[in-house]
């Protein structure tokens, strides 16, 4: 079995593998909490990854690349928002179309950059971190965007349950008609939530293409966007469980590399995240109302203000 010396590297690797899942799932959580189910996460992630990589390769400027990747994700989300919020199209169909569109469009954007190298990624060390006795070098080995994702987690948790705006967002997701009659702009709030979801998916994509691998290739998210969508359901729409789930799924990927050759076939270990999601879906649907308490009541339903 993996010995104790492996604990720290496995922990660091798990944080890295969980980061894109956490970022994308937090964005999707906000979107779903407002009542909009966006199945286009995979497409928005790919778009963010391609645009981010193109900007990083072209300019060598990683902060700019990150920003552009987020904007690309948000731009795709805006198209989705127009379809489902303004035109009130079916959210499931529009989301699936968004993913298919994102796969193709990102391949087009990234075509020139496939398999290219990035200029040296000189990310500034986070000050004082390396000076901490004992754990300093470990903390430095963690990607800066992983820290950013943890900050995003704290921000999203605070926003949803501790801020007035978060209360309004949840209100819009649970009872859009009541929110509307109280004078809240339901469609505008949903647009903002969808745009946030897109930007976070774009950030997850940039993390993969610019910081994590770092390389661009068609379809490189390899289903991580879908895991993020499943993760929100897995977490029962609660941010704390999104965090746990992201590292659980990330950890499953890493663990299977370390367990290979010891006991179980790698193919079976590769199925772990999906098996876990199915198991949780079964548990949720069996335990009924209690598990669904945090599910936005209007999830997936278009809003008609004139009615």
């Amino acid at each position, binding site marked *: 079995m*993996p010995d104790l010396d*492996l604990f720290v*590297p*496995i922990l660091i*690797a798990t944080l*890295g*593998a969980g980061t894109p899942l956490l970022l994308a799932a937090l964005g999707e959580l906000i979107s779903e909490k407002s009542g909009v189910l966006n199945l286009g996460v995979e497409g928005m992630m790919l778009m963010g990854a391609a645009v981010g990589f193109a900007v990083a390769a072209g300019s060598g400027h990683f902060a700019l690349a990150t920003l552009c990747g987020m904007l690309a994700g948000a731009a795709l989300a805006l198209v989705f928002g127009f379809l489902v919020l303004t035109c009130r199209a079916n959210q499931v169909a529009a989301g699936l179309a968004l993913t298919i569109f994102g796969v193709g469009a990102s391949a087009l954007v990234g*075509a020139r950059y*496939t*398999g*290219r*190298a990035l200029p040296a990624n000189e990310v500034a060390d986070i000050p004082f971190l390396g000076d901490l006795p004992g754990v300093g070098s470990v903390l430095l080995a963690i990607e800066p965007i992983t820290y950013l994702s943890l900050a995003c987690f704290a921000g999203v948790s605070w926003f949803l349950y501790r801020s007035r705006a978060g209360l309004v967002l949840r209100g819009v997701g649970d009872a859009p008609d009541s929110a509307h009659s109280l004078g809240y702009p339901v469609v505008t709030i949903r647009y903002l939530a969808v745009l946030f979801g897109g930007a976070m998916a774009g950030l997850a994509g940039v993390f*993969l293409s610019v910081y*994590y*691998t*770092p*390389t661009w*290739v*068609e379809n*490189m998210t*390899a289903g*991580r966007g879908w895991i993020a969508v499943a993760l929100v359901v897995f977490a029962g729409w609660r941010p704390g469980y999104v965090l746990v789930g992201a590292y659980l799924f990330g950890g499953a*990927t*890493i663990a299977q*590399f*370390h367990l*290979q*050759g*010891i006991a179980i*076939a*790698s*193919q079976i270990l*590769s199925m772990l995240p999906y098996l876990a999601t199915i198991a949780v879906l079964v548990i949720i649907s069996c335990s009924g109302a209690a598990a669904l308490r945090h599910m936005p009541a209007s999830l997936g339903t278009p809003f008609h203000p004139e009615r």
Partner: protein
Amino acid sequence: MFAIKSASAVAVALFFALFASAMPAAALDRVNVGFVYFSPVFDTGWTFEHDKGRKKMEALLGDKVQARIVENVAYGPDSLQVIRQLAADGSHLIFTTSFGFMDQTLEAAELFPDVKFMHLDGYKRRDNMGTYSLRYYEPSYLAGIVAGAMTESDTIGYVSSFPLPAVLRIINGFALGAQSVRPDVKVKVIEVNSWFDPGREREATDALIAQGADVVAHVTDSSAPTLAAEKAGKHVVGFHSNRASFGPSSQLTAVIPIFGEFYAEMAQSVLDGSWIAQAHWRSMAQGSLGLAPIGSMVPADVQDLVAQRTEALLSGELHPFAGPIRDQAGELRVPEGEVMADDALYLIDWYVQGVEGKLPE
């Protein structure tokens, strides 16, 4: 009506007569060659090397050859459409450059008996369909010598794709090379179940480094292992392409296929009418494989040793799979004084002793 009918019948007969006389059994003036790639042409990697081969073929044969490529072809029924289209559009010779096209190539070969097909790494053949494969284990053995000489932890990591004979040959050849300079070296294998998934390739590389590997090699197609090794300050052996630009201080060397001369040879034989369906298994001595320049971090005596062994390999004096070779269970597979036969090597389904990795039952 009858007159018109008979006139058209005569026309048809004439047309076929002309057509038949325009199609000589042998020698052509110009050969149309089609290539089917499973991925787009990148700046590095498998398809890039095939396309480099295609360009070299064009340079060697000039206007006697006309090449057409179709890239990013998915495995399965779609690939049959592409191969058929190439054949119907007048290709005389079609290369399908991935194992996954085997059944579709065979199907197309049955539909177009006058077109020659060459499928990579497969085992199905026909009188108009040959196969070609490279003895990757030869340069892998040499790269293993470099890795064995450079490891200080006696642990080398291998990011593997699938447990296919073609992959096992490479890893075994590499391990035998490493053991030839450092008998106790361990080669740890992690499979990522993909030819190309930069995320998983990076994670597997990190996992191997965490398990003590200070040199990592791979049988996957992205540069992620090189980038991860560079980042971790470890060494790496590249695969399919020289990836030194991704790992200037980490790449010890890289194992590289060379297709140009072989493609030109095949096209020429179709021009002459001398092409026959064969199973080609090309070696370093035939110029079909090589190593990327060995990095400056490798000491001169190691470089000399590699040069020496390369000579011995090219002259046929050295065979990487020369006995005694034991498998993981310690069973003697190749006795002393013998070399493994090509048939057994082509279908190998076991790891040599010293490789740590589990194969499917």
